[in-house]
């Protein structure tokens, strides 16, 4: 029966990819409560549209739904109803520079700890548009075209965004280590 089949496939999807889904949501939303909300909403949506998952890679398909639910939730959180404009959240290099000069910044204090917490702080500090491509590429090891379909931008944009994301990440990471010697 189709219904049973759908249930089975959903169970497989959840058992194999829920951690990746939660990790992405947790990093994009920034806290556990919002990440749970998003994963729950996205999972029900995934179950509803299970039929549309044909031949695609299940992980990328599921992460795409998670990602869109995150962006909608982030848009609502910032008081906007429409989809969030990722590029508008990206140009924060000015703020990054400021971070380097203001030694009393609380973000900087956080970054001064060990390498692990410096990595986490640097990633947390990045704009959401950079954070998502780094998580999808470096943590989940997805292909460029998969990331393109998840984030809804051309492959070329994914690549250039990844490149800028890496630079920003390194910058944030290095600022935190310079901070240690101050």
């Amino acid at each position, binding site marked *: 029966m189709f219904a049973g089949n759908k249930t089975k496939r959903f169970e497989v999807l959840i058992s194999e990819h*829920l*951690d990746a889904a939660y990790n992405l949501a947790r990093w994009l939303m920034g806290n556990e409560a919002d990440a749970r909300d998003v994963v729950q909403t996205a999972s029900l949506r995934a179950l509803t549209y299970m039929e549309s998952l044909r031949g695609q890679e299940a992980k990328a398909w599921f992460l795409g739904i998670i990602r869109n639910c995150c962006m909608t939730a982030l848009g*609502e959180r910032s008081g906007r109803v429409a989809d969030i404009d990722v590029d508008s959240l990206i140009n924060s290099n000015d703020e990054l520079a400021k971070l380097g000069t203001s030694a009393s910044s609380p973000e900087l204090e956080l970054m001064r700890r060990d390498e692990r917490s410096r*990595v986490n702080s640097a990633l947390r500090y990045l704009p959401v548009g950079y954070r998502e491509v780094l998580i999808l590429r470096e943590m989940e090891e997805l292909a460029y075209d998969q990331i393109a379909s998840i984030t809804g931008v051309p492959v070329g944009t994914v690549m250039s965004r990844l490149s800028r994301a890496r630079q920003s990440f390194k910058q944030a990471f290095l600022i935190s280590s310079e901070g240690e010697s101050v």
Partner: protein
Amino acid sequence: MTDLSEDTEVKKLLKTQAEYFVAPADLRNRLTQSMQYAEHKKNFSPSSLLGWLGAPALQLTSSFAIGALMAFLITGAWISGQQDQKSNLLALAADHAHAMVTQNTIEIASSNMHTVKPWLSSQLGYSPLVFDLAEQGFPLVGGRRGFIGATPVAVAVYSYRQHEIDVYVLKPALYQKFPKNLESMDGFNITSWQVDGLNYIAISDMNANQLRAFGTLLSSQQEINQ
């Protein structure tokens, strides 16, 4: 053009040092549970049963008829003719889970209480007190008919952030067939109250305290305006 080459240093840092958040076990369980509810209900759906019975030509265009038949079948399968309190609660939770999963069950989509209330009255023959609580964070989304056993009941649908809240409105005769202490049913939180001769049961996957706050808000609004 930008440098497109991989950066092994960044990759290594993120792969080995960045925190990987593993999904909490209770979230995993809840997802599987709410889906099982939905499937449980669907397995008794009239369309699949009619298929088995070889009567595909039989047209049941009225969703009321489909719902009533479905409810009758569920009642038959689950309760075996007995009025079991727990089964009623289970039927309510299944109805809610099914609505959440299928997402297109709202029959009158409106945030206007003057639209939703008359629609529910016309469908069910009694008048639930419906209010939009958008200012307090719980916007009215619409209304639909839910089914508990063989009985259609009014359901006012609200939302809170990403959550859906279904408020089932029962006549006292049906409410008496429910367990006395309604607090939760396998992963869903529940709160209930009575105003003006009708019983209200709010069910949602949101946090128990928030749901109780919603119940208090809606019931006091109803008390004032009944």
